[in-house]
């Protein structure tokens, strides 16, 4: 995958003056469990500006997927508000496109029909939606594979199909929950490049949830570090690495510094998580 240097699609400096596209305010989510109430997300607030790439990082079990589902409108029964372009959002919203942690292609549909799925739901005719879908298949670098079925593709390719399918619905905000978690490191880095390239090409506002520090630093403009149970935002780190970026950046010195900083924040939280797993299951800490 050769990375052609993109013509500066967007300014390198963050668009600070613009109004945020996504505003998450004071989200609290509690689960009732056999051991009592569990606060999965605790007063989380942040916003994402148009064209910005924000990463959310935190140890396993800190409430990242819960947050993802809340913003995507798949979970209700939470406190706080989610706003998209000023409008309060309840339930799934066409402005938000979700890419899931798990493999989520439809095995009974070919690549092109997978990608055309949201267009089909929107009532677009077959010819037109295939044409549109082809554009997104190309965008994720799968041209030539339109007629294949997911079973005939590798894990990384399938994840790209999911990505193209979500992009085809042209969401204002792309929401990703550990989209590369099941892939090997090399594929992950290369797919990261693809994401960067697409994000720059479309000026796509993106919220990426991950537990992978390298991935977060490679991709994001800003990283929110979350605490372990209850999930709060511990720190916000601005990643001042130049754009356009590629996976080559992982060997730079500035990159290393960011990674080290975030790791020192995360280490504490991750070890709390481990202790928690070692001791009695699900006991609440620092509640």
């Amino acid at each position, binding site marked *: 995958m050769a990375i052609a240097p993109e013509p500066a699609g967007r300014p390198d400096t963050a668009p600070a003056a613009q109004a945020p596209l996504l505003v998450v305010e004071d989200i609290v989510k509690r689960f009732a469990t056999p051991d009592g109430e569990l606060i999965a997300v605790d007063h989380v607030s942040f916003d994402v500006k148009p064209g910005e790439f924000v990463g959310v990082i935190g140890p396993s079990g800190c409430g990242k997927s819960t947050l993802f589902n809340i913003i995507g*409108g798949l979970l209700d029964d939470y406190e706080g508000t989610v706003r998209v372009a000023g409008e309060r959002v309840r339930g799934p919203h066409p402005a938000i496109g*979700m890419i*899931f942690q798990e493999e989520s292609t*439809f095995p*009974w549909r070919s690549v092109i029909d997978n990608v055309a799925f949201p267009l089909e739901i929107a009532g677009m005719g077959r010819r037109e939606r295939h044409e549109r879908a082809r554009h997104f298949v190309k965008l994720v670098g799968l041209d030539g594979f339109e007629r294949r079925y997911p079973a005939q593709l590798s894990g990384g390719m399938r994840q790209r199909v*999911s990505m193209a399918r979500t992009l085809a619905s042209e969401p204002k905000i792309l929401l990703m929950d550990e989209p590369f978690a099941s892939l090997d490191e090399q594929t992950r880095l290369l797919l990261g490049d693809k994401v960067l390239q697409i994000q720059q090409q479309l000026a796509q506002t993106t919220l990426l949830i991950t537990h992978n520090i390298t991935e977060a630093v490679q991709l994001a403009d800003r990283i929110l570090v979350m605490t372990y149970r209850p999930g709060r935002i511990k720190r916000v780190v601005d990643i001042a690495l130049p754009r356009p970026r590629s996976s080559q950046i992982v060997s730079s010195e500035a990159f290393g510094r960011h990674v080290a900083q975030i790791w020192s924040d995360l280490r504490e939280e991750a070890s709390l998580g481990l202790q928690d797993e070692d001791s009695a299951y699900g006991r609440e800490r620092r509640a």
Partner: protein
Amino acid sequence: MSAANPGARHFPLLVGMGALSAFFAGIEILVRIDVINRFIVPMPSQVIASFERVIVEEDVVARFWLTFQEAFIAGAMIAIVGISLGILLYRVEILRRATETWVAAMASAPTVLIYPLFLVIFGRSMWTIVMMGFVAGLPPVILKTIEGLAGTRRVLIEVGRSFNLTARQIFTKIMLPSALPTIFVGVRLGLIFTLINVVGVEFLINFGGLGQLINDLAERYDLAGTYASIAFVILVSVFFFVVTEWVEKCLVPER
């Protein structure tokens, strides 16, 4: 499938035919040298010779057609009714919990034993046979439909929700296609039971197609003719097997 070697495509078929011929040849020899009693197993050559007689004198084509129709109607009924009931039971939780055990029990019960009841209801007619085939083949279709729907991966449903699908769209565009391969397993299984029961009840009540013919010939002690008729039953089942496979290939792409 390499174009350079067209023979490779037919190789499995050839091996199958070869093995079958070898098997019959073996039987032939064993009967001729009296290792197998010729009053129980006829010689394959006699069976082959009796085909003409069975076709000309016993009107086997019309009988084949009758059995085929019965099996086809019963088969279509188990597919339509079974899948619909499966969907209904899946969607109405309380119905499912109330009946699932019953259906499962029915799947393994020897339903053929209730044929006298059906005789009373439908008379000694084609419909007794069709209904027996239907009742026997229904449970696996219902059970596999429920299993397939319940097995839809959660994340696929969430994808649907994230694209703002209605409950109906989630069902038709995601759950049903996801369940289809499992539903087909149920239909195939059901068809096997249906066919067994159709021919079995024909035999039992001495009415209609190939089952009755087998009964007749066996009672006349025409062993070769009996086996020749059984070959026609196999032909019916081969036909259904090929048709379901073809339908499945159209509906379910390679996964």
